[in-house]
């Protein structure tokens, strides 16, 4: 990744999480999370399965409710107030492991649904935007097909385009490539790299360490609901501090 792109990080705070805790019933899944993300920053979150990575990023757009501490997105405090939740969801796009496209709608309808109903964009304008983003993810020719007719990699790129159509300022990715066949991973990662180069604020849960090295400003390692370690990618991979990080890296990098 180029220095130029890294320079786009501003002082403006995009996400600020302070002393956040979450329980599923009596199970303490997130413990004392403190995390500040600046606008334009690209953060990769990794850690063993079940460590709470998904739960953490799902708390940011209120798909999960946190019980203690505070989450602030672009200056809006996330509380049970529906108005604030709505506001934050408009700012934050999310890409899921299993794409979650709407199977009963065409690709174009998938992309225009939220702009038309949530942003009240006129249909023709929404379609124009949709085609613009489909070209960006390099599948404009699939606009009239249904999700079930596309390959996994294509579906995930459509899902990314669908989020982008809402013009979010922050994008969350929850293991976007782990449900894909190996030959399709690259096309999705390329799309995400292109997005990073445009300066999008991104929080990516992934085990693609090549991607982390190439685009991340910071890599965060989570274990048992805690942020164990965070550092710049080079430092993180070459000089991990905690023994748990070392163990995890040795497993994932196959040493």
């Amino acid at each position, binding site marked *: 990744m180029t220095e130029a792109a890294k320079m786009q990080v501003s002082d403006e705070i995009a996400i600020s999480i302070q002393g956040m805790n979450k329980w599923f019933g009596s199970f303490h899944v997130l413990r004392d999370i403190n995390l500040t993300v600046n606008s334009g920053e690209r953060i990769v979150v990794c850690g063993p399965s079940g460590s709470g990575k998904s739960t953490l990023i799902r708390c940011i*757009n*209120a*798909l999960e409710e946190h019980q203690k501490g505070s989450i602030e997105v672009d200056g809006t405090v996330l509380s049970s107030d529906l108005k604030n939740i*709505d506001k934050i*969801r*408009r700012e*934050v*796009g*999310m890409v*899921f492991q*299993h794409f*979650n*496209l*709407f*199977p*009963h709608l065409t690709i174009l309808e998938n992309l225009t*649904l*939220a702009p038309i*109903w*949530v942003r009240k964009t006129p249909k023709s304008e929404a379609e124009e935007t949709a085609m613009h983003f489909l070209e960006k993810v390099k599948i404009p020719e699939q606009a009239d097909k*249904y*999700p*079930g*007719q596309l390959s996994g990699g294509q579906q995930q790129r459509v899902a990314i385009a*669908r*989020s982008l159509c*809402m013009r979010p300022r922050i994008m969350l990715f929850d293991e976007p490539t782990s449900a894909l066949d190996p030959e399709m991973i690259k096309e999705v990662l390329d799309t995400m790299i292109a997005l990073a180069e445009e300066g999008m604020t991104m929080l990516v849960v992934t085990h693609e360490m090549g991607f982390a090295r190439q685009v991340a400003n910071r890599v965060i390692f989570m274990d048992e609901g805690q942020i164990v370690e965070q550092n710049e990618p080079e430092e993180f991979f070459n000089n991990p501090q905690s023994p748990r990080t070392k163990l995890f890296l040795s497993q994932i990098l196959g040493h």
Partner: protein
Amino acid sequence: MADNNTNPIAYMRETPLPQLDPPASEAGLGHWVRQNLFSSVLNTVLTLAAFVSLYFIFTSTVPWFVNGVWQSESIRGCREVLEGATGGCFAVLTERWNQLLFGFTYSDDQYWRPTLAFALLFVAIAPVLFVALPRKMLYFTLLYPLLAFYLIWGGSIYATISTGLGFVVGYLVYSRFVASSFALGLIGGVVAAFVTWWLGGFVVDAIAPATPFLEEIPSRKMGGFMLNMILGVVCVSLSLPLGIALALGRQSRLPIIRIICVVFIEFVRGVPLITLLFVANVILGYFLPPDTNFDLILRVIIMITMFSAAYIAEVIRGGLAALPTGQYEAGDSLGLDYAQSMRLIILPQALKISIPGIVNVAVGLFKDTTLVSVISMFDLVGMIRGPILASTEWNGVYWELFMAAAVLFFVVCYGISQYSQWLERKLATDHR
């Protein structure tokens, strides 16, 4: 390879090989018969047995149809014409068709009214059933219930207009307040509609003309297949939205709503329909103030609607449960609110999965409308069992009458089932 081959790739054919016909034993009628009817000893025996049974069925029923008597005054007239030969006495259908279709006491100079309502029904439901039709037709669909009501019951047109006005006022109030809160809009709309109807009641009484535009026909005069159609159409169209609401309510995060829905569904499903009909007929009368004139058809409609709504709710709940939670999360993460994600994402998919089950309930409900005959309403079956079979002229003409009833019901139910299969094929977009 041959020298004159100009193809640079020597091993590639330039022309496809001609297709050879399959051997005669693998094609044609003879092959089909051998494969499907006589492939083994058991199969051969079964085939022969089937042919013998078909022969007996045909030889015994064909004369019954062919010799059938279509013109006669009574069953004795039929017997005289037949002189002991086998033959159906279809004259009962030509003599009593009006009672079978419209009931016992419906005046015959008014038959055109339900008939017109029936014809317009097709115009009204066409845009609902076929999305390809122009959406403007839906305005007629909205108007149709009032139109059909006035055509069938008649009376003072102001009552009908005031009913329609109540809906319009309710909708206006709803759309005025729904932006701030859905619950407020809904409650406001319902209250406004009832206030309009209440006020409308005074106005109608004041200005009702002595001779109304269409003569008023009381509910107790309705009967025959018309009554089955009225009950079937009204109850299906009311129980679908009610069933959706119950299914969603059962999933609600608010405990009170969830408990109300669960109790309602489980109670209604645990009680036979016939009990509910008796309740409608007899017991409701005790609870209502003595002088209330609460129409029997309306009471029966309420009971059948409740009954089928509970079943439809359970069918739709199955459809909702079949959707992955990712669909809800995708809607949420895009910022859609509850009503939007239900209407645009969840329900279209859940209803598509539920089509076979819903059609099953609808067809069952339509046939169950004949149960009203046990609370002495003269629907098609009640008509046959009561006034017609009890009359001296037609006592004993069971086969012909019940066969006619079966044919009428079959045509409607088969039509519904064919439509649902067509719809399922059309909606199959998931390519799994």
